[in-house]
């Protein structure tokens, strides 16, 4: 525990390496995510941000290193223990990944139906609450094909929150959205973090978002094949002496 805010670490990543067919995406990645913070994983295209996220939620097996979520190692975890851990995290996928043949309300009821004994009426009410939290109450009966990209992302967050997980992973929440919608989504994330005390791990390369929502961040780099910075994004912008970090935060073209 090295937190300046004193909160405990809910995710610990140690010496993580990702390799596909012998090609190293990144290695020696180590960091902690603390309870209640909005933690941003940033970096340019192709640096392995989404790959890191997929390692953290246990979709990929790490080539080296370990990942601990809420005190439990996720790699190699199987059976009931894995199910129990998966119920305590929620993931919003890059495109929303809503089930196309179900309404938004039904989408949110899927995890409730699968993992709780709540009666149908209770599930419907919980789904309404979640949609209300992300401002989609009036779209409950629409199909994913009938809503806009921004709404799909918000519905994706609502579904990820269905079981009140203490940790939410968001993959590129603002990608492909206009600045106003994107800013609205950032405000929503901040609000949820503040009010629910949920820990957020957000993968993004949108500078505005990073500065607006991030308590702390790490930056990955394709060339360095690993982490090149860690800390408060606002301070990194002002103080970092790494040329890649500076170029990223100041939107400069690298020499």
């Amino acid at each position: 525990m090295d937190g300046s805010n004193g909160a405990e670490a809910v995710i610990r990543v140690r010496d993580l390496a990702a390799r596909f067919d012998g090609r190293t995406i990144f290695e020696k990645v180590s960091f902690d995510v603390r309870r209640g913070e909005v933690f941003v994983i940033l970096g340019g295209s192709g640096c392995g941000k989404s790959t890191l996220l997929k390692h953290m939620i246990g979709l990929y097996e790490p080539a080296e290193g370990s990942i601990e979520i809420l005190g439990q190692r996720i790699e190699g975890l199987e059976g009931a223990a894995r199910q129990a851990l998966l119920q305590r995290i929620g993931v919003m996928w890059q495109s929303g990944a809503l089930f196309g043949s179900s309404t938004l309300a039904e989408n949110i009821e899927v995890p409730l139906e699968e993992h709780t004994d709540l009666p149908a009426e209770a599930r419907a009410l919980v789904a309404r609450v979640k949609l209300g939290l992300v401002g989609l109450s009036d779209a409950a009966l629409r199909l994913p094909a009938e809503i806009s990209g921004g709404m799909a992302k918000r519905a994706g967050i609502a579904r990820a929150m269905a079981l009140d997980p203490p940790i939410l992973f968001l993959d590129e929440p603002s990608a492909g959205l206009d600045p106003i919608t994107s800013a609205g989504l950032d405000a929503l994330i901040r609000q949820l973090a503040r009010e629910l005390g949920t820990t957020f791990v957000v993968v993004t390369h949108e500078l505005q978002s990073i500065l607006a929502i991030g308590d702390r961040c790490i930056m990955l780099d394709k060339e360095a094949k690993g982490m090149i910075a860690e800390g408060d994004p606002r301070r990194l912008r002002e103080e970092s002496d790494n040329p890649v970090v500076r170029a990223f935060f100041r939107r400069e073209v690298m020499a």
Partner: protein
Amino acid sequence: MSTGGKAAATLEAMPEGGGRRLAFRGALDTAAAARLWPEALRAARGANPLVLDLAGLTTLDTAGAVLLLRLEREAGAARWQGLPAGPLQAMLDRTREALSRPEPHPPAPLPFLGRIGHATVLRGQGMLGQVAFLGEALVAGLGTLRRPWRLRLSEVLRHLDEAGLRAFGLTVMLGFLIGLILAFQSSIPMRQFGAEIFIPNLVGISLLRELGPLMAAVILAGRTGSAYAAELGTMTVNEEIDALRIMGIDPIAWLVLPRLLAAMLVMPVLALLMDLSGLLGMTAVMMTLGFPPIAVVNQLQTWVGLGDLVGGLAKAAAFGLAIGLVGCRAGLGAGRGPRAVGDAATAAVVGGIVSIVLLDGIFAVLFFRLGW
């Protein structure tokens, strides 16, 4: 909202002032809410006044808050007591606020007659669309006839390969088996009359005139018609068709014509293959019955005419065109969302098979009138 090992919630209901007091203690999380839901609702029903005593609560999650608010609604009103200020109160307030937002109402279902009318209109529109599509394809085809170099030959070849060459194995196998089965089944009654020598007539004529083209068309509808619909349907969903239109490229000429041409060209070949392998299967049965192959060939030469074969192959080409048209139309007319592609593929196979059977009926009448 982890329960962090705190004790699961308990519920105690006791009468109070003519109404009822429900005292919750412990962690009211999703599991506890699910467990207590029916009991709590029963206890709250008709309670006047209803007192919700929450002083003993340690945790409250969304499902728990939903349960409490549902109890309030069940009783009509509730007196809230002892809910600790802070996160628990905030959770309840947030849930109440989210539930108070207006929810959409599903559209009222149409009456029975209305549903029939709606379905009729939809079906009529679909048929009109089908006719319009036929017209568009015809116009595009005529345009290509005038400027044949506009046709994308590489696409035609690719589709010929996919619809034809790759279906050869399946066609040969099915044809051989069908010839075998037909010959064997007809040999049983024929033997009673000592008429086994006429099996080649029976199997030959039915294969060449009907079964060969029909079975080949069913294979094409299942393999290729559905593939056309799925491919074009995915392109429609991905807005690739719109992109083509905006580039000033006619999607019919660009995408549909090569497929139609390939389907039309490949079908006579597949039908011929089906015919030949069917005759081979029949010959195998005849040999087990003691007839030499030359007897079978003689019988076929005498009784089965070239007209039977050519008529069948011409039919096959028409079937190919129909299957291609139905498949492409299903793909280009696909709606949005992931279900659209599946629906288009289904429509292509079902529509393709229905259309070839209908066409076959028309050909039967036509050939009869022409005396073929």
